[in-house]
């Protein structure tokens, strides 16, 4: 005062390491162990191939509506790769690549996409939340988890995913604010894939970047090329370190693109041009990462093909297994379970009512 610009101490940065043409900025290249690089590549390829296969299953009517991830693999894998098993993942609904990295089985994805509750079961050794459909509502759960970890004096962190559209929700704001106020170990990973169904990010917000929204919370924010796995990896590494060492949350905006439809119920031709999609196809994270690995002498065409056939087989086996498992899943009566730890009498009665009705219909079916 009297009239001056307010200087803000938190940083908002932009980061890119491996550009669209696969050119590497060596000064910034993160140090990633070879086995991790292989694992990242294999999971990226698996996620890509699985996505393709799910799409064809959906078109054949063998699974229900699902949300493809094509194009967003680097944003997911470059972030999730930093989590330890005890850390927490709180996803939205378009994080299949990250889930696969965490060990979710292909079968469970297929079973879930067939509308069976069995597909949401999470093994006890994975601290991963189930898919959250209500946009923007899940980030605050990560804040509670992170707070609890800190309370228990663990250095576990919580990583939560959401889209550009989710940043418009009040819950986004409240989650970031709580995380900052309580300095909880949370990494907010925004996959800015440019679209929220038919709404482009330019109509979602007037701010130039999503990363700068961090400034409202006194939190560091960084915008990375989300199709550049090295940049994503480097940014996430810093954020996870910050969280683990008690220095609070970070907002990471991964600039990426949803190369396919919003879900299989959506027709993107209604709202975006083929040219735009084509431009983003040029920035596909997968070939870019493969070029890097090849340049580094870690990957060859041959090796890649070998991994790919292995993956295709893995997917086929999973589909076969899932379809077999689902055959045994007809009985709806356990829909009453998992409402409460102990079933109240009114629910027991309703369960009996349905059991009875089902057996009567079965009888009638026999008669008729």
């Amino acid at each position: 005062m009297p009239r001056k610009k307010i200087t803000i101490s938190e940083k908002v940065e932009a980061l890119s390491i491996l550009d669209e043409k696969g050119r590497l900025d060596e000064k910034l290249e993160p140090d990633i162990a070879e086995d991790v690089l292989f694992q990242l590549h294999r999971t990226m390829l698996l996620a890509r191939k699985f996505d393709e296969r799910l799409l064809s299953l959906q078109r054949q009517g063998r699974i229900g509506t699902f949300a493809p991830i094509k194009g967003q693999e680097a944003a997911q894998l470059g972030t999730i790769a930093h989590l330890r098993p005890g850390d927490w993942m709180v996803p939205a609904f378009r994080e299949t690549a990250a889930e696969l990295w965490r060990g979710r089985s292909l079968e469970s994805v297929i079973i879930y996409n067939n509308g069976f509750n069995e597909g949401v079961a999470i093994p006890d050794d994975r601290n991963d939340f189930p898919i959250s459909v209500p946009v923007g509502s899940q980030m605050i759960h990560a804040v509670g988890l992170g707070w609890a970890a800190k309370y228990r004096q663990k250095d576990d962190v919580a990583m939560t995913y959401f889209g550009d559209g989710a940043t418009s929700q009040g819950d986004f704001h409240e989650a970031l604010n709580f995380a900052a106020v309580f300095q909880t170990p949370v990494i907010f990973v925004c996959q800015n894939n440019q679209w929220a169904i038919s709404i482009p990010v330019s109509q979602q917000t007037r701010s130039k970047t999503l990363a700068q929204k961090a400034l409202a919370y006194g939190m560091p924010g960084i915008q990375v090329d989300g199709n550049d796995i090295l940049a994503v990896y480097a940014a996430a590494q810093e954020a996870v370190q910050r969280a683990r060492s008690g220095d609070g949350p970070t907002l990471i905006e991964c600039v990426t693109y949803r190369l396919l439809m919003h879900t299989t119920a959506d027709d993107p031709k209604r709202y975006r041009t083929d040219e735009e999609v084509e431009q983003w196809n040029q920035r596909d994270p997968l070939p870019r990462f493969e070029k890097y690995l090849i340049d580094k002498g870690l990957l060859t065409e041959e090796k890649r093909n070998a991994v790919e056939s292995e993956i295709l087989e893995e997917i086929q086996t999973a589909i076969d297994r899932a379809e077999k498992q689902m055959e045994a899943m007809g009985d709806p009566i356990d829909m009453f379970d998992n409402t409460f730890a102990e079933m109240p009498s009114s629910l027991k009665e309703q369960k009996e009512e349905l059991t009875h009705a089902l057996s009567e219909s079965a009888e009638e079916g026999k008669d008729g």
Partner: protein
Amino acid sequence: MAKMTMVQALNLALQQEMEKDDRVIVLGEDVGVDGGVFRVTDGLIKQFGDQRVLDTPLAESAIVGMSIGMAAYGLRPVCEIQFSGFSYQNFHQIENHAARLRWRSRGRFTVPMVLRTPYGGGVRALEHHSESREAYWAHTPGLKMVIPSGPRNARALLVSAMRDPDPVIFYESKALYRAFREEVPEAEEALPIGEPQRVREGEDLTLISYGAMMRPTLEAAQQLQDTDGIAAEVIDLLTISPLAEKILIQSVKKTGRAVVIHEAPRSFGPAAEIMSRLMEKAFYYLEAPIERVTGYDIVIPLFNREKAYLPNTERILRAARKVLAAS
């Protein structure tokens, strides 16, 4: 007259009313360029431009809150909440404001807005896309809660909702969106809000339902006629709240027996209110306890098992026969 699906009929209502009344503004997620995820608002942005049809950011509370401001100004916003499962994000805007602004300002500001939202099961959708929780709104003073059961009444009720001086929550059954076609007159047609309809006459039993459950209910009535020789009277509520009980009471006084059907969870659901009104006003005419056929008190299961959750003709028949057998 043209044969239309409910989606087309709703679209017609919007399109005609927007032509007539420049106060009508459509807003919500994906309602513009995309035409709504179910295409109910298809073509409107083309015809009326982006000052009449607003593609909003992804925030239900703001969509409703902005509508409240527009309505108080004198416009007639029709907002879409993409699925009723996400209308709890704006529950406070409705309860704290939309339902009260007339009251709070002693009539100075009113909220003539419509909140359209798809509800209900039966279309193999994801979690949160199949619920039926009209009771939340029905229990909230200051709101009208309307649920059409077919293309023609959907169009006519939406027209009335847009002209209503008070906030209307308008539930559209996804299962009905494209399930069948009906003749829908090109000429304007409006149905009064607050008037249930007797859609089938009968003396033996009253079946009361609304929305997507009307179809299995009517099917059950037909089967009762065909196989049991029973004449069931069927009432389509159309307006859930404020509940106009008169026609229900008249019917039950005649039949002495009733079944109420809805897909919402049973406990503290709409059927309870209907049963209570009948108990209060037709108790001495009742020859058997009223039965309800409803969803269960659980989260509706993921789509592969939702059929077992939803009421169907068979369950309605079973309840009807139970009520008929009692004495």
